């Protein structure tokens, strides 16, 4: 039972991670390239752990990426991804030309599946705004491989061939609701950087 997975000495993780420093993303304006949001509290910028070197994808967290993660992207062009592909034979979803809102939802769902989540579903699409731009807002359910229920909510908006996303994922037990008010404010504040 993986209640607490067997872990030998923590020292071994050190070898993997010690060279990385996680910066703070303080409350206030936060920019991901041409996208800007206003953070209502301090977050940790865990992009160095999660974005896999994708320059246009920023990932913030409060309690670490297993317990909450907020993706904020610059405008992604055709051919770009939300998730770094681990190898040529394991591609992750790429944006295609001329996608509609339902395909942007599919792109987010497939990207979440590519992160290793299972049983990913999207629901309740609704019209929303990203600054002055038209956007689609929708909700997500998924599960970790170990069967922990995960909830999510996302905002996607396309303008002039560039698509920006804000995506929040957290365990349904406690963590999603605990940060939802902050995430709502972040999404409401999202706009193209001016």
């Amino acid at each position, binding site marked *: 039972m993986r209640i607490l997975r*067997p872990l030998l000495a923590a020292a071994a993780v050190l070898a993997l991670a010690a060279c990385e420093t996680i910066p703070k993303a303080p409350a206030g304006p936060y920019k991901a390239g041409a996208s800007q949001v206003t953070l209502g509290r301090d977050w940790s910028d865990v992009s160095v752990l999660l974005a896999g070197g994708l320059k246009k994808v920023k990932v913030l967290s409060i309690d670490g990426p297993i317990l909450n993660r907020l993706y904020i992207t610059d405008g992604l062009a055709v051919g770009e991804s939300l998730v*770094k592909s*681990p190898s040529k034979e394991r591609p992750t979803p790429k944006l295609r030309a001329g996608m509609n809102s339902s395909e942007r939802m599919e792109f987010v769902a497939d990207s979440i599946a590519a992160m290793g989540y299972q049983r990913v579903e999207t629901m309740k699409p609704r019209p929303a705004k990203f600054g002055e731009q038209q956007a689609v807002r929708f909700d997500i359910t998924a599960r970790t491989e170990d069967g922990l229920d995960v909830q999510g909510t996302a905002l996607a908006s396309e303008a002039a061939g560039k698509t920006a996303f804000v995506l929040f994922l957290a365990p349904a037990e406690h963590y999603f609701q605990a940060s939802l008010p902050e995430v709502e404010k972040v999404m409401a504040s999202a706009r193209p950087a001016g």
Partner: protein
Amino acid sequence: MFRGRAQAMGAVAATALVAATPALSAPRPPGLKPAVDSVEAGLWDLMDKAEREARQKAELNTDAALNAYVRDVICKVATEYCGDVRLYVMDRPFFNATMAPNGYSEVWSGLLLRCEDESELALVLSHEVTHFSENHSIEAHEADKRRRNATMVVAMGIAVVGTVAAAGSANPQSAQSIMDATSSLIDVVYLASISSYFRFSREHETEADIVGLRRMAAAGYSPQAGGTLWRGLIAETTTSDFKRVREQDTRLGIFDSHPLSPLRAEALDAEAAKLPAPTRVAANRHRAAIRPFLAAWLKDDLRRRDFGQTLHTIDRLSKAKEDLGVLNFYRGEALRQRGKAGDLANAALAYQAATEQADAPPAAWRELGEARRRTGDAAGAKAALATYLSRAPEADDAWMVRETLDALSKGD
């Protein structure tokens, strides 16, 4: 669960300079329980733990009818070992089945999707039952130890590097891979031993092929299924989108160290010729059992993003001329998502074909409308989108479709 690591372990095996040939021993008695202080008991204990984890996985398919069907086929070929087997169907889009020495057995949806009939499923399960009945796992573990003794220094170095590589090649964003990165580095020995139990020698694979074929033929299944299925899998590999996959040998399972060569298919054909004709004719039982899951499993398959292989699988499933609404819809989905030149027009044709079938999902009309809109057929698009709204008036994306319809009307 062990995909990435299986590759790392492959790197270890490749360094093995000495491959000891294990002696084939007598089949195990049904209902076997090993002595508590034996290595085998340790292996069972480990597998009992893996089994408890499997029961809690998100991918576990708990559908009673599907489980009953697969279990029935296992029991027909496992005969005396039926009582030893505990089956778990996993919704994972890869061709894989395993049977651990404690009886814990997994059958993955990617395998069920790719078997054309019950005989093909019986063949794979029979192959796994043979690994089980002939104690191949424990022999594989002992062989692994002998091999590593011979190459200890090299293997130690590679095992660590290999695990780091596996942790790195797992998706870095995955919550699971973060967990695995924290545990697999440390659990290197533990995980290495688990995968070693499923890394069978060439002799074991040959034995599982041939003894397995006899076992399924004795249960009344068609022994020709062996050659057919093996060749089908090899053919699918050649349709992959990826050069490296096309050039790789096909493997029967994710742990397999020995390729599914055309020679193995020929050996099965030769053995099949010596075996009695089948007494079971139940071609449609397999399709009936997997029918409720076709849509979900094809959606999972698409998430592998190897559209060539998914399209090949859909073509094979379409040969029976059943489920053409669902199958054509997913053919359209694969083409739309691939998006190469000409794919959109072919996607429109596939969606169109889907809508002509009684089992077409409502989304087929929505996607048909979109594909027509993009290929310049505004009138056709409007008709299809309107049909979608009439068939799925409560759909939560209806407002999006109405927006598209409005835009099309303004464009007139």
